[in-house]
């Protein structure tokens, strides 16, 4: 049986490696230099591939509710970070930290979701 030592001798370890890219597609349309908090009410939670989406109604400047579309990871990534398909229900009051769309449209990439009962769900880790 080959020893681990000889296996390791074959290792080629070199310069710094970039991390594997985000799955599915670039998140370049989101402005990751701006963190924005939204406060609103869940209208729909799409626990779907390739990415989960949170639809949330947020009061606009004129007082009328605006629907925001918030994109996150796939259910496979999120489930390994503690999410389940039932964690968000229509009507839930939430505070959500996002990177907003660069376009200024009501959308973004969600980072943290805080529910009224104190539970918090993170996209990553």
């Amino acid at each position, binding site marked *: *049986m*080959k020893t*681990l*030592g000889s*296996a*390791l001798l*074959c*290792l*080629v*370890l*070199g*310069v*710094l*490696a*970039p*991390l*594997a*890219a*985000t*799955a*599915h*597609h*670039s*998140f*370049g*349309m989101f402005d*990751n*230099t701006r963190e924005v908090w939204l406060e609103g009410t869940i209208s*729909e939670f*799409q626990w*779907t*591939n*390739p*990415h989960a*989406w949170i*639809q949330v109604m947020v009061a606009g400047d004129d007082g009328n509710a605006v629907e925001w*579309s918030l*994109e996150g*990871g*796939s*259910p*496979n*990534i999120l*489930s*390994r*970070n503690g999410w389940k398909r039932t964690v968000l229900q229509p009507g839930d009051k939430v505070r959500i930290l996002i990177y907003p769309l*660069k376009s200024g449209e009501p959308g973004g990439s969600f*980072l*943290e979701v805080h529910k009224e009962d104190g539970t918090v769900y*993170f*996209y*990553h*880790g």
Partner: protein
Amino acid sequence: MNTLRLIPLLLTLASPLAALAQDAEQGTYPADPHDMSGVWMNDNTLDETLRRLGLKRLAPGVTLPPTGLAPPPGPEVLTPEYKAIFERRRAAQAQLAEGVESCEWVGMPNVMTYPYPFEILHTEGRVTLIFEVDSQVRRIFLDRAEHLPFDELDPTYNGDSIGHWEGDTLVVDTTGFHAHTELWNGLPHSEQLHIVERFNWLDADTIRVDFVLNDPLALTRPIERTVVYSRRSDWRIREYSCLENNRDSPDEAGQRVGGLVNQVPE
């Protein structure tokens, strides 16, 4: 998963090899080295690295520790003809809105490094890899010493794979690709792409795969890359189709179709 075991590999800046050697001495060798059954995950994806470091996001300007593994090369390895193809594709891509995604299968070799896990199954004369990304499958034939004859070797995303054991190393030889897919870093390739993978044990719960990619038309030299995977006994492979609810697909103008897709058709 043994998280502690991986941290030295990631955090030791000066001597990753020393860190890995020390780590291996504490590890165990598999009881049956010809059995790689189980769920495996690339240790150095963004999500795995953030979780290991206890970070909740990659804030701008934050630099993550080096992995100790050499990154795959860029377009400098391409022949002039394929460098021109690379530039043309890049220009076409620039016409699309940021973040659009057509959901094409990723194919080899990207299916091996996509930031989702895969499962290895052993059956008589066969090693099968079931990937989470797009529920892809690679069948590696250990009971066949030759590739399919030319007239049966249909160009495909994942190619025709044959394998054998050299000691405790699983060596896999794959050819028979079409040119719809890209290599790492978006490099184009021809139908003459040929990939050799060597699956080696680092310890009973860690394998590394050494890839060598050759393409006489597209590459001026072989591309070599090593990727480390660890066993995830508590994970199950989930279904994944990129087409299920793709709100980022491009419309005819190359913009994100957007909307609230996930509607059941009437």
